[in-house]
């Protein structure tokens, strides 16, 4: 099979799995998850083959794997869709396939509680979180699984979307994958739709990202109408077009065409990658099942936003105004989300804000032109954040065990202050979590996070963006701090609740993915060590920079090595970790925590503000203005004038013309005449048929004779 064909086939197994599960196998849990995992394995194998073939090709940047077919006629031309694997695509495909596979595997374990089917898991019950009334009293349903198969179906569809996005050679199919992921994220966040919070979160996620998507659609439309194509390589390879696009001040706000398009596309990314100001959905999205959080909100979907910007980087780089906006938003988001993360108690929420923050890092890197660094951080972050989410899921799972054991359902298994001392109960989870956490903090030298984050800082320093550098450094410090806070509160110390005491390690399907991912969380950094790094530089060739850098025609120069960023990153990572441990080793409850500041805890009141500024007016505009005032009031009110008016005219005509003149005089008068005539002629009708015939014949003879006589002259 040629590589191109194989690439075409990569997204298909999960999609088929989706239809298979939905249409046929949804009655059987085992069959459904087998189908799902099988599809993930198939795609994973295919991706690996493609990846290694791609790696072995020289100058993949100039001769990527690509193939396309005509899809949609547009006038004289056809719109083609196709697949493209260039170095960036290959690198992304690599981590995407691994994380997707791992998450599928993890899901099998996460959703089987290892317990016999019982009252909590029978058919017909509403899903997790819903309130049911049984035996005379109401209670919240525990984690029952009536929708196990559905979960794998959604995951399959999601994987399809992600693979589609990665292998697309044009913006449109990329957008298709993008939106399908949006749908799946909606469905999966709202998976426990019985909970009002989940259903609100799902809608919030979908609508917030849709704001970005709408702008992105505009951007795509604009690009398409300007360039006449949406194929990446055709656009970027067209020098003339790029020059036209780059003419400054051609559009609004002094932006060039390219700048406007890139800005519009970037707004899509802001929505998808949860950047300020559209970040509000991601923390709420933690309502979804944990593997979903890991997959969607750490590894894949949010990365897709960054991936899209990296893809469109040549366009972006044409206008420095847009670059400035991007850099600003990225940097601001990084520090902004980090501050909120410090004040969160929910284990997943912390990770969510950390994700936002880390994505801010990448966006900022793009804003300052360091797209390779962004891509590098994208991949390492995907590994260790997936690891962390899965680890947190494992923790929650363990805690749920405890909750089920004690039967005290009022204890929130996700609140870190309910945990503590889990390192002994869940050793594998603990160690992998530590690895992930250290990678996130950028623990020097051995973790992947260090290398990627260091590269971003170095780029910011090297390109002279001092503000960006300082802000990101502060954000990195806080990252290390809240990560260590999390580890300390969760795993170290003594169990603070009974439930924590009864927590236990999770099954192998959950721990194996953790271990596999932790290997990558450490090892992936080693492929991207800068060449001129002291001691370690050159030990391992800087393969990543070399490989991904060739995606574009102009390979970006690696920044000069400099001690300042290195020392900074060393300092912030170690300092943050230490401070985090030092402060939180003795904190036993939320009240003792200094950082429980209302402003931070309430996320700077963004939700409330948005509700006041956007949601409420939109509802008023819909329900009151459009429907009640405009449609019902103005338009229909205007129409209703016609009814009485016509009725009045009709009444006039009837009363003064119809009744007296037409009815009385013409109508009744003529009827009277006819009646009189009829009465006079009545005796003729004797009822005797022969008499009738005779009469008619006589008349016929007479008339016939008369006719003959007068007309023909006979």
């Amino acid at each position, binding site marked *: 099979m040629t590589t191109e064909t194989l690439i075409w086939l990569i997204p298909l197994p999960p999609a088929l799995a989706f239809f298979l599960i939905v249409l046929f196998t949804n009655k059987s849990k085992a069959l459904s998850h087998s189908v799902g995992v099988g599809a993930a394995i198939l795609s994973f194998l295919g991706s690996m083959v493609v990846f290694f073939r791609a790696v072995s090709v020289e100058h993949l940047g100039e001769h990527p794997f690509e193939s396309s077919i005509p899809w949609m006629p547009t006038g004289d031309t056809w719109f083609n869709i196709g697949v493209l694997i260039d170095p960036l695509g290959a690198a992304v495909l690599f981590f995407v396939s691994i994380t997707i596979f791992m998450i599928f595997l993890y899901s099998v374990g996460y959703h089987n509680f290892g317990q016999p089917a019982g009252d909590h898991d029978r058919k017909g019950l509403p899903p997790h979180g819903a309130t049911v009334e049984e035996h005379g009293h109401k209670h919240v349903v525990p984690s029952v699984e009536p929708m196990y198969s559905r979960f794998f179906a959604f995951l399959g569809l999601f994987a399809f979307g992600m693979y589609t996005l990665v292998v697309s050679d044009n913006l449109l199919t990329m957008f298709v994958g993008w939106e399908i992921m949006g749908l799946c994220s909606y469905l999966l966040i709202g998976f426990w739709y019985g909970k009002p919070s989940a259903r609100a979160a799902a809608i919030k996620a979908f609508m917030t990202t849709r704001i970005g998507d709408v702008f992105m659609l505009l951007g795509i439309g604009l690009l398409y109408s300007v360039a006449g194509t949406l194929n990446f390589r055709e656009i970027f390879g067209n020098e003339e077009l790029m020059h036209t696009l780059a003419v400054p001040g051609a559009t609004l706000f002094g932006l060039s065409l390219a700048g406007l398009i890139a800005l519009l596309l970037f707004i899509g990314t802001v929505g998808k990658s949860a950047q300020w100001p559209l970040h509000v959905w991601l923390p709420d999205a933690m309502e979804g099942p944990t593997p979903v959080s890991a997959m969607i909100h750490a590894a894949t979907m949010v990365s897709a936003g960054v991936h899209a910007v990296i893809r469109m980087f040549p366009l972006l780089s044409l206008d420095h105004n847009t670059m400035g906006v991007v850099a600003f938003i990225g940097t601001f988001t990084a520090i902004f989300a980090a501050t909120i993360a410090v004040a969160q108690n929910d284990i997943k929420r912390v990770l969510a804000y950390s994700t936002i923050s880390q994505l801010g890092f990448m966006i900022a890197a793009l804003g300052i032109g360091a797209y390779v660094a962004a891509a590098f951080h994208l991949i390492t972050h995907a590994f260790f954040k997936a690891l962390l989410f899965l680890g947190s899921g494992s923790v929650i799972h363990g805690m749920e065990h405890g909750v089920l054991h004690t039967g005290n359902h009022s204890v929130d298994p996700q609140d870190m202050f309910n945990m503590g001392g889990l390192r002994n109960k869940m050793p594998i989870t603990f160690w992998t979590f530590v690895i992930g956490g250290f990678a996130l903090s950028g623990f020097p030298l051995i973790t992947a996070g260090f290398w990627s984050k260091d590269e971003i800082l170095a780029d910011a320093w090297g390109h002279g963006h001092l503000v960006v550098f300082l802000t990101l450094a502060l954000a990195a410090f806080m990252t290390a701090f809240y990560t260590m806070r999390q580890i300390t509160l969760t795993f170290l110390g003594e169990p603070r609740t009974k439930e924590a005491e009864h927590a236990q390690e999770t099954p192998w399907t959950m721990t194996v993915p953790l271990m596999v991912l932790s290997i990558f969380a450490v090892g992936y950094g080693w492929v991207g060590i800068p060449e001129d790094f002291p001691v370690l530089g050159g030990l391992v060739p800087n393969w990543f920079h070399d490989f991904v850098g060739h995606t574009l025609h102009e390979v970006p120069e690696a920044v000069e090595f400099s001690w300042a960023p290195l020392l900074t990153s060393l300092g912030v990572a170690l300092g943050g970790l230490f401070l985090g441990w030092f402060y939180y080793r003795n904190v036993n409850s939320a009240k003792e925590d200094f950082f429980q500041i209302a402003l931070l805890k309430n996320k700077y009141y963004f939700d409330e503000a948005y509700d006041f500024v956007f949601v409420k007016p939109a509802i008023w505009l819909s329900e009151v203005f459009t429907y009640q005032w405009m449609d019902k009031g103005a338009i229909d009110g205007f129409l209703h004038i016609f009814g009485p008016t016509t009725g009045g005219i009709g009444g006039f005509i009837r009363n003064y013309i119809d009744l007296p003149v037409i009815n009385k005089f013409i109508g009744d008068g003529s009827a009277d005449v006819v009646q009189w005539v009829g009465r006079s002629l009545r005796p003729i*009708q*004797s*009822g*005797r*048929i*022969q008499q009738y*015939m*005779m009469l008619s*014949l006589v008349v016929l003879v007479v008339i016939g004779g008369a006719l003959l006589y007068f007309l023909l002259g006979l």
Partner: protein
Amino acid sequence: MVPLSWYLIFAAGLFSLGLFGVLARRNAVAILLGVELMLNAVNINLAAFWRYGTITNMAGQVFAIIVFAVAAAEVAVGLALVISVYRRHNTVVADEIDMLKW
């Protein structure tokens, strides 16, 4: 050979006899007999005109056949009516069946 006029006069005679039957007979069945005679007279004309006109134009014969169908239908319905009337009024004398005026 026989000229066309002979057939026409023959048919006219038959028609007139049928007409007399229709007008003069008291019995409803007999009236129907007269109608049959008239229909046959018409048919003779049709056949004669076919034979004496353009012979490849089959309209005459086709019309004759349709008249057959009409005659059959007429007899079936007519006699059914006569029988029905007879059942109800115990008479088939046309002059006595004068409900038509109501």
